[in-house]
């Protein structure tokens, strides 16, 4: 179905962005108030969140309506595609900051504190005598106390398999969509969402285990910091991805998408693959080595 709408569709007047700004303002401003111990902060945050939710639903709703009414020609479709690709690229760089912190700590700061290298030669023996500088560590002051780590073989491996499988199921859903087979499309999508939820469930179990049994917390020095920031932000992205796929499932059930035009579906799938790839990085560098 090529363009039913000649020319590039330019919406006129939109109220969603300003709502988004106000919502973001209230949410983040409220969070800052919360961190400063203000008692009215939760209310502000809730209001902000509600505004944001309404905004997201409204904004995407409008876009879906426009899309289904055939307003978007191929060029608009390409704009969306490029937009999504660059958005994912920015997300990659966001994770890169935390991976960078992990690598820096492991390659430089921890060995230095343990007395290695030109920087460590005096730092180690003079300031932190007795500290070995071996990963995993919570630092010379043993912040947070002794802790255990989570072996790669176990939940992490299981979760790796789950996520890779979900990457496959979302691809199967895509193939089904391209062949205009509704039923398999919905089933494969459902499977993907469920795999995502199972992943999150296991992640939750793992976090609970870390906190309750291993004394491994966000406060366990640099190991705990990098571990929970990376896995935590990844988990957040899995959640977002799962919600996106869920919306796609609902839309597919309503008969949205055609074999030729289903950008939203593809965007969600790309996002899911991105989340997948980040996980593999996590599995290798956080759990395995």
């Amino acid at each position: 179905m090529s363009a039913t709408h000649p020319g590039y569709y330019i919406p006129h007047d939109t109220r969603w962005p300003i709502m988004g700004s106000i919502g973001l303002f209230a949410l983040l401003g409220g969070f800052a108030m919360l961190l400063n111990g203000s008692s009215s902060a939760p209310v502000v945050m809730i209001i902000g969140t509600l505004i944001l939710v309404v905004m997201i639903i409204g904004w995407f709703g409008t876009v879906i309506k426009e899309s289904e009414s055939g307003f978007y020609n191929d060029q608009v479709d390409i704009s969306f595609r490029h937009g999504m690709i660059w958005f994912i690229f920015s997300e990659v760089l966001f994770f890169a900051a935390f991976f960078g912190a992990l690598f820096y700590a492991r390659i430089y700061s921890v060995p230095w504190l343990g007395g290695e290298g030109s920087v460590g030669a005096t730092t180690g023996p003079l300031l932190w005598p007795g500290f070995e500088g071996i990963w995993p560590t919570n630092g010379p002051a043993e912040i947070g106390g002794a802790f255990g780590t989570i072996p790669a073989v176990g939940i992490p491996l299981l979760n790796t398999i789950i996520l890779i499988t979900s990457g496959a199921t979302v691809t199967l859903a895509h193939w089904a969509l391209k062949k205009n087979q509704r039923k398999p499309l919905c089933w494969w999508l459902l499977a993907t969402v469920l795999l995502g939820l199972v992943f999150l469930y296991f992640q939750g179990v793992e976090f609970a285990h870390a906190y309750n049994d291993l004394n491994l917390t966000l406060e366990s020095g640099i190991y705990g910091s990098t571990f929970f920031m990376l896995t935590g932000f990844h988990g957040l992205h899995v959640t977002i991805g799962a919600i996106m796929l869920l919306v796609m499932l609902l839309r597919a059930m309503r008969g949205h998408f055609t074999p030729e035009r289903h950008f939203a579906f593809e965007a969600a799938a790309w996002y899911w693959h991105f989340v997948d790839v980040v996980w593999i990085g996590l599995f290798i560098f956080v759990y395995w080595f």
Partner: protein
Amino acid sequence: MSANQAHAHAADSIAEHDHHGPPPGLLRWVFTTNHKDIGTLYLWFALIMFFVGGALALGIRAELFKPGLQLLDPHLFNQFTTMHALIMIFGAVMPAFVGFANWLVPMMIGAPDMALPRMNNWSFWILPFAFTLLLATFFMPGGAPAGGWTMYPPLVLQGGSNVAFLIFAVHMMGISSIMGAINVIVTILNMRAPGMTLLRMPLFVWSWLITAFLLIAAMPVLAGAVTMLLTDKFFGTSFFNAAGGGDPVMFQHIFWFFGHPEVYIMILPAFGIISQIIPTFSRKPLFGYESMVYATASIAFISFIVWAHHMFTVGMPLTGELFFMYTTMLIAVPTGVKVFNWMATMWRGSMTFETPMLWAIAFVVLFTIGGFSGLMLAITPVDFQYHDTYFVVAHFHYVLVTGAVFAIIAGAYYWLPKWTGHNYDETLGKWHFWLSTISVNVLFFPQHFLGLAGMPRRIPDYALQFADWNMVSSVGAFVFGFSQLLFVYIVVQTIRGGKKATDQVWEGAEGLEWTLASPAPYHTFEQPPSIKEDSAHPGTPLPAH
């Protein structure tokens, strides 16, 4: 011009709208998706922020006018320095360039608007809220952030209530920048009129394409860095705490991985503007169009592997220091290519010196001076002496004020007739130029001497041997600052009336935007023009019909 004709398909759209002009009322500005409206919003926002940041700078210069403390408590002084920089960078210079991109990129490549107009609105409207968060800290107990715009821990974490607000404000600015950059990239890659090949695009468009890439790669890293600050302060992590196995210097690495590309984010669009102006007033094609493109791309690439030149004194291993020294020096080569190309464009031209050209020439000279001091800073063993002195302050104000800001002003004069339909007052424009150019050198040149003689930066008070030049510098600052009021006057005057501008405005101006009416109609290029290029004028595409 026929590009602004209404089209038959208006009835297809969901929203009721008028193809001829903007809807009336103030809410127009809040709800607009029009790239010209949004460009205007960005530019006004930037101008206001320039004055807020400038007022803080004048506070700094007033305190430094003579030795002893007269006006600002040292803690407040540090807040001024920090907020001055944050506001100038994220509130003035970056939004100004995004404003230019919004106005010009669609007109230059023959697109009907930006690719993602709703998101375009959002990119802008996040900014006022982000700066509300940031500026509100001035009124909180403990005051505004005072740890420098570089936000180094552990110092920044000693801030009171402001820390969380600072971090979330930075997050919001980041979201805004990323969305703005995505829009620019997608517009350029997807919205070009038929025949507008990449190597026919005006240089301004090229520099923004590359800048947008830098933004998308750099801003998320900053977001990550400040997020780690947040968790270190409030959630017990140890990223920047040696006792827990972290390292305060790690923050600096992550910050500057963003921070250095950031400074090129602030100069590449400036290069783009200058590359439009110089050919126009030389009446001669831009020299070395393709090498300009490659040079810009090389600068962008190298900018990701030089970051630690801001941290030569942190005690990196020798190999690291050498690596970053060499890569930093290398940037002089592509930047030199640009300077030489501008020089060659002027050579044997037929030059006139209207206000935009004056600013552009001043840009080339003064930016190059700033580049030279940058190169001196790149030499690690000597940077040990220069680092954290006023020599650095002089360097970056030459590249930022006489670089980025001068280019913004040059561009504003250059396109003002196209935007407003009126010619500005040339005499006043020249007054503005000469007042600014002389005073800005009185302001910043002596800071080289201060730095070399040993005056550290970020100090509210100084030893007596630095008194003379500080006084000179402060006098320059006030003259420069107040000269900018003249600019506001000229802009307002031009908007409200004046001689009607022709479509081409400047005799030597070439490119699509000059084929449109002045002022440019609310909607342009709804039917894409088809493009050919005059082979004698690279980078100045024209409609084929």
